[in-house]
């Protein structure tokens, strides 16, 4: 029998909503989450209507596609122009690079293909003599999969353009931005499936912000918010697991071992945020022969600066919501995106355009 649970059950939702109301802080309190899937669930289900007026809930740099710097997209396009096949997740295709997106480069003749899994890129490499490059984006949830295929004795015509990022370091960096009064974090559930609640411990002790791991069903999110507000009421700040059915304290040690066998921490550039020390990954030297950056000598166009009027940098750092941007839904729409947050299907602007203003659950 298929087990069935009511994780969108309106009765429990109202009860958790009451709990949130009981726990409402008197002073303004800002909760930031860092996950496009959270933003989708929050906005599509109208969950912000459960929040007291004092509580703000914003998406930070939670969309890996949106935070991938234009220069990495430029790099993928330049590699494709050498005649190589570049494989990318579909979300990445329309994100603007400095001159054009992967999609536009494809329409001009570059062989850029979408894949659903890193495995698909490896399979393609085994079927052709041409160079195949996997443009690897994503957080800790996705990085072990790139590692797994590199541990699988890939053929010599395969390489990886790695742009993986680490979420906890970005969460820490956001706390240090001026005028960014973050009261607490709703931590991403599936990143936490891999890194565990322990993945947030190293920097928590000095930060004093509640961090609650949340799942993705409406009730999961309301529950996590209630746990955050309870910590705030009780003046404590700790890592708390609101998604124990998918997250263990130690995370997924097998996936982490894959990741650590192939990648080591490195500084990384985040679109809209800048370079965050230790927030990315680079291939370990044993895998240098599969590093597309070393294999292909390409010239990159000058990187485009900030887009005039676009507030993506503020949205990505949880200092603005899409409605604060003068371009939102006027000149910037999913059909004519100006900034990355409108392009990525998990970008805050794209989600608000599609689902903003929904009735509550």
């Amino acid at each position, binding site marked *: 029998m298929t087990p069935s649970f009511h994780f969108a059950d309106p009765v429990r939702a109202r009860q958790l909503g009451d709990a949130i109301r009981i726990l409402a802080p008197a002073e303004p309190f800002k909760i930031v989450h860092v996950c496009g899937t959270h933003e989708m669930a929050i906005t599509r289900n109208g969950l912000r209507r459960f929040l007291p007026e004092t509580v703000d809930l914003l998406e930070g740099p939670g969309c890996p*596609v949106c935070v991938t710097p234009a220069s990495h997209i430029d790099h993928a396009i330049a590699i494709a122009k050498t005649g190589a096949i570049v494989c990318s997740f579909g979300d990445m295709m329309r994100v603007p690079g400095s001159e054009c997106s992967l999609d536009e480069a494809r329409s001009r003749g570059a062989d850029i293909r979408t894949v659903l899994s890193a495995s698909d890129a490896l399979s393609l490499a085994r079927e052709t003599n041409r160079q195949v490059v996997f443009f690897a984006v*994503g957080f800790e949830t996705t990085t072990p999969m790139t590692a797994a295929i590199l541990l699988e004795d890939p053929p010599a015509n395969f390489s990886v353009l790695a742009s993986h990022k680490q979420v906890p370091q970005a969460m820490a960096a956001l706390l240090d931005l001026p005028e960014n009064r973050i009261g607490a974090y709703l931590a991403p559930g*599936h990143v936490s*499936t891999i890194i565990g609640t322990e993945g947030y411990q190293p920097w928590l002790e000095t930060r004093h912000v509640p961090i609650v791991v949340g799942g993705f069903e409406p009730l999961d999110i309301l529950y996590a918010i209630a*746990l955050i507000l309870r910590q705030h009421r009780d003046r404590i700040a700790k890592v708390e697991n609101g998604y124990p059915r998918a997250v263990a304290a130690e995370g*997924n040690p097998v996936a982490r071992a894959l990741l650590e066998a192939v990648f080591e921490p490195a500084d990384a550039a985040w679109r809209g945020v800048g370079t965050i020390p230790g927030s990315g990954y680079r291939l370990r030297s044993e895998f240098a022969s599969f590093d597309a950056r070393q294999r292909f000598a390409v010239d990159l166009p000058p990187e485009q600066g900030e887009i005039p009027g676009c507030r993506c940098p503020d949205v990505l750092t949880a200092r603005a919501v899409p409605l604060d941007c003068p371009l939102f839904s006027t000149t910037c729409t999913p059909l004519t995106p100006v900034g990355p947050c409108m392009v990525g299907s998990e970008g805050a602007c794209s989600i608000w355009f599609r689902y903003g203003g929904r009735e509550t659950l």
Partner: protein
Amino acid sequence: MCLAAPARVLEVQEGQLVVDYGGVRTTARSDALAEDVSPGDYVLIHTGFAIRRLSPEDGEETLRLFDELTASLSVEGPVEDAPSSRQDTVQ
């Protein structure tokens, strides 16, 4: 991007699982999975890889945790047989 969805395990093979993924029979790699699984178990799938075994007991435990929190704050119940607009499988 970090989207992961549950699937039911139909067969356990070398390095991969045959799963029922929302009604579609497909495969998922199991080399990033820390737990042992058997046919009938549920797993969370991310970009073609199983990343975590899910158990119905843990799903029930989640609902119990929700109720424990609301009860501790004296939110009015009860919740038995609550009507639902949507039925979700364990996730």
